[in-house]
């Protein structure tokens, strides 16, 4: 069964203090790894898709990387507005198409 594990569960950073979130996955044939941002009381917002080991994507202060077993979301010089839950997911094959299997997320709090 395809699985996604995220660590740490929660992370507190000072504004400007860079760090990384981890997503380890077990999947029978990677068809895409996805990062989402979720604000309290809202639906997940798409950030990145990665398809193959070595691939990297960047958006403002966020950079996602992928290896054969895990993905990292690097946050450089975070600001308080980066506070959110970050979810990682992989495509899992179903009889009809794919489904996203999510990790439980990392709750990020950035203090000014």
């Amino acid at each position: 069964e395809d699985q996604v594990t995220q660590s740490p569960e929660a992370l507190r950073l000072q504004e400007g203090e860079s760090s990384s979130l981890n997503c380890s996955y077990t999947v029978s044939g990677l068809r895409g790894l996805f990062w989402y941002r979720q604000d309290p009381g809202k639906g997940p917002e798409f950030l990145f898709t990665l398809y193959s080991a070595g691939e990297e994507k960047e958006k403002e202060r966020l950079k996602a990387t992928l290896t054969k077993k895990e993905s990292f979301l690097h946050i450089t010089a975070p600001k308080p507005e980066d506070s959110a839950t970050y979810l990682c997911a992989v495509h899992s094959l179903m009889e009809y198409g794919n489904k996203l299997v999510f990790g439980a997320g990392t709750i990020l709090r950035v203090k000014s």
Partner: protein
Amino acid sequence: DAMVIQNPRYQVTQFGKPVTLSCSQTLNHNVMYWYQQKSSQAPKLLFHYYDKDFNNEADTPDNFQSRRPNTSFCFLDIRSPGLGDAAMYLCATSSSGQGGYTFGSGTRLTVV
């Protein structure tokens, strides 16, 4: 802007009283999903429609049903809500299951 809209944002229902949550989309995506997300947990797929074909997850309770009258709309019916069904319900869409999904803002269900 093309989007996924869920109504209502917040729903309070009585124990055992049927409730319906709705989702509409303007993306013309052929696949629609319903996820359940409990506090600090990963979103969990309940079922999805691939075009008109309904696909239930094996562990989704019979208490949960869904209808998709046309491409744009999808409904989640909970026949007899229990206290354990209190959660955020997320609707998402995709084009043939490929790429990242687009999520609505969710409906927060409270059972009293």
